[in-house]
Every structure is written in C-alpha cells, then in structure tokens.
C-alpha cells in the first residue's frame, strides 16, 4: 500500500512539474522578422501631403554612429518612399519644406538601449532635420534590448514643430532586417507590412 502511495505521489509530482504554466522556450521564441509599428491615433494624416527621404541609414554600433550605404539600405529607403507615394503622399526634396521627414536607423549589434523621448541624445550629431530634440505624442514603446540588424523607421512631423521639438507621428521597428541574412524581397515585404498594419497612414493626393 505504501509503495502504491509513493508511486502515486511521484507520478503526481512529475505531472505537476511537467505541466508548467509557460511552454518551453523552443516553442515560443522564433527568431524571425518581427514588425512592430506605433502610430499617433490622434493625427489626421490627411492634413499632410509631402515627405522627404534621407539619403542614408544611420548605423548605430554601441555608442558610435555611422551611415549605411549598401544596396540593402537603398532598397529599404526606396521601398519606404514607394509605400508613402502609394498612400497618396508626394516626395519632395529636403529643401522643399516637406510635411514629413524620415529617420531610418539600423542597429549593428545587440545592445541595451532605452527608447523614449530624448533617446537620440545618446547619439551626438544625429539630428538630420536640424532640430535639437524629438518628442512623441503617444507613450512610446519601451524596448530594453534591440536585436542585431533591427531597423527603426521614424516618421517625423516637420509641419508642426513646437519649441524646436519635432514630433514622431509613426514609427516602425523591424527586427533583424539588416543582418545580411534576409533577402531584399524580405526587406521590401517587411516595409510593406509595416505600412499595411497602419491603415490610418494615408492622405488624399493633391491634384495639380
């Protein structure tokens, strides 16, 4: 009888420990492309008509910044511009007072960074639109650790600059996009997906 009870208790303990709340890590963390976007839900994008693109991607490696100029960078920037045009926005030169500008950043290695208003203060010299600070009309996502190759796309409002602060109206994080492990088709598909999951980012084209 005692033996049977012991067997039952052992079976019970085995069952209890094997039935943990969380599934094994192997079945939950897939190292695939993850596309995260956040949009200012109070912005009427129909009030904005033009945008401008940077020529390069800012490349962050720890505390150092440089620029990324390879073919993947070109494909990425061109696709962002194409998706914006498909949403009714007109691309103009940086000098033409665009309503929107883009900051496109790639993270070289896995690093720990706090992403919040003022995040760019950690990277001196990175103010491509000539303003000393950036702000968010929404509570931005706090990301404590970027994976290598993560691309961050910020859509900044150059039309309504308040106290030398430009507001980010939409941003996208595409995990692991520029690790040289992904094809250019995957790059374009990921950018398309970022726009697809933000249906409010659209304007009525200006008729000329």
């Amino acid at each position, binding site marked *: 009888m005692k033996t*049977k009870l012991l067997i*039952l208790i052992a*079976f*019970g303990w085995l*069952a*209890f420990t*094997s*039935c*943990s*709340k*969380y*599934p094994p890590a192997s*079945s*939950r*963390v*897939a190292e*695939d*492309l*993850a*596309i*995260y*976007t*956040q*949009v*200012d*839900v109070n912005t009427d994008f129909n009030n904005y008509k033009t945008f401008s693109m940077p020529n390069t991607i800012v490349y962050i490696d720890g505390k150092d910044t440089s620029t990324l100029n390879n073919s993947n960078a070109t494909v990425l920037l061109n696709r962002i511009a194409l998706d914006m045009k498909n949403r009714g926005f007109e691309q103009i030169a940086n000098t033409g007072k665009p309503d929107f500008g883009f900051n496109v950043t790639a993270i070289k290695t896995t690093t720990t960074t706090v992403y919040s208003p003022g995040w760019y203060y950690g990277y001196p010299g990175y103010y491509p639109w000539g303003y000393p600070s950036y702000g968010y009309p*929404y*509570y931005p*996502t706090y990301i404590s*650790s970027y994976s290598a190759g993560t691309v961050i796309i910020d859509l900044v409002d150059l039309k309504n600059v308040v106290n030398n602060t430009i507001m980010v109206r939409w941003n996208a994080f595409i*995990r692991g996009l520029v690790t040289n492990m992904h094809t250019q088709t995957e790059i374009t598909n990921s950018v398309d*997906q970022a726009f697809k*999951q*933000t249906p409010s980012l659209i304007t009525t084209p200006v008729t000329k």
Partner: protein
Amino acid sequence: MKKILLMLTVFVCMTGMARSQDNPPASLGYSPSSYYTFSWNTTFSIGDFNKWVGNASPAGFDIGGRYFIKGGLAAGFNISWQRIGQTYEHETYYGTSGQALTATNYRFTWMVPFTGVIAYHLMADKTVSPYVSLGIGGDYMEHHLLIQEYDIYKTRWDFSLTPEIGALIKFGNFAQWGAIVAFNYKWTTNQIDLYNDREIKNLQMLDLKVGVALTIR
C-alpha cells in the same frame, strides 16, 4: 449429432443462468464509501475558444474526490490544471493605442478549474461502474499572447458548468485501486479580449480524462 450438441449447449447455459440467480456468488464486489482520482487530461477547444487555440492539448492533470451519499449518488470535487497553446506564423496583433505587431505568435491559455460535483453511479458495487455527473464551479485562467520577447496577457475568473460521463473501473472485485475514464463538456463565462479587433466569449471545451482511482470501502 449437431442437434445434440446444440441442445447440450443451451442446457449448460440455462443451468448456469439458473444457478447464478439462485446463489449469487460472494465475489460481486463492494460499494465504496468514497474514491479519489488522479487523471491526465486532454483538452479540445470548441466554439470561439477554437479560434484562439485550435490544437488539442494533452498538458493537463486533474485531482478529484467523490463521497457516496446514498446508493449510487455521490458528491465531490475536482481541481485541475491545464495548458492549451498553439503557434501561429506571421500574425498581426493590433493593440489598443495604435500599436501593431506582426510576427510569429504563440497563444496559450493556462487554467485552473475547480468544481463541486454531483455524480450518479450505476452499479456502484460492480467492477465497472459508469456514471454521469455535473460539475459547477469556476476557473482561474490566464490568456497569454507571446510574440517574441513580448508577453501580452490578461487573467480572468469565471463560472463554469461541466457535465461529464465516465466510468470507475476497479482492478478486481475487491481491489482498492482502479482506473477512471471520463469525457466532459465544459461551458464557462470566461473570455479573451487581448485583441483590439476581436473578442472571444464563453469559452467551451471538451476534456478526455484517463487516470488512476483509489477507492475506500
């Protein structure tokens, strides 16, 4: 010759039946005063719950007890724990404040059901005793949406009803140990509202239980 054999067979059978009616053997078994079960559960989500997780899940266990009140009527309890989950490739999650995330999603629900049970056993003294029961109780549930390092979840308590059919099978007429096999349908007031664009209400599921039973005389 064939006719003789047939008549002999019928005679032997009739004799046996008459004997069993006249003198019931002493080894019919016993009616337990109570019994306890420990069973392995496999859950199949149905209804709206199936839209959340479509897979059946064998990751669950149940502990139960029954106390016979009168004849085959018994009252008792069940406490269980169960996880049901599934991976969905390239799914987009829309948050409530303008966020959206497309990636491989792992959705799972972890639940701890607890019920008071009324059961009626047919032939409680026999080796195999089928029963019907109704469980009334609640669940503690956690609904998790795991997207890479993100864990978006909500916890919910609910009310539940669990009708069940099953059988208590003793390993011999006088054995204390036996097996339990049961199948139940469960309706709950629980819901999943993690998504901005969809709501899943009144979670329902089917459970198959197979386990061991300890009967007390």
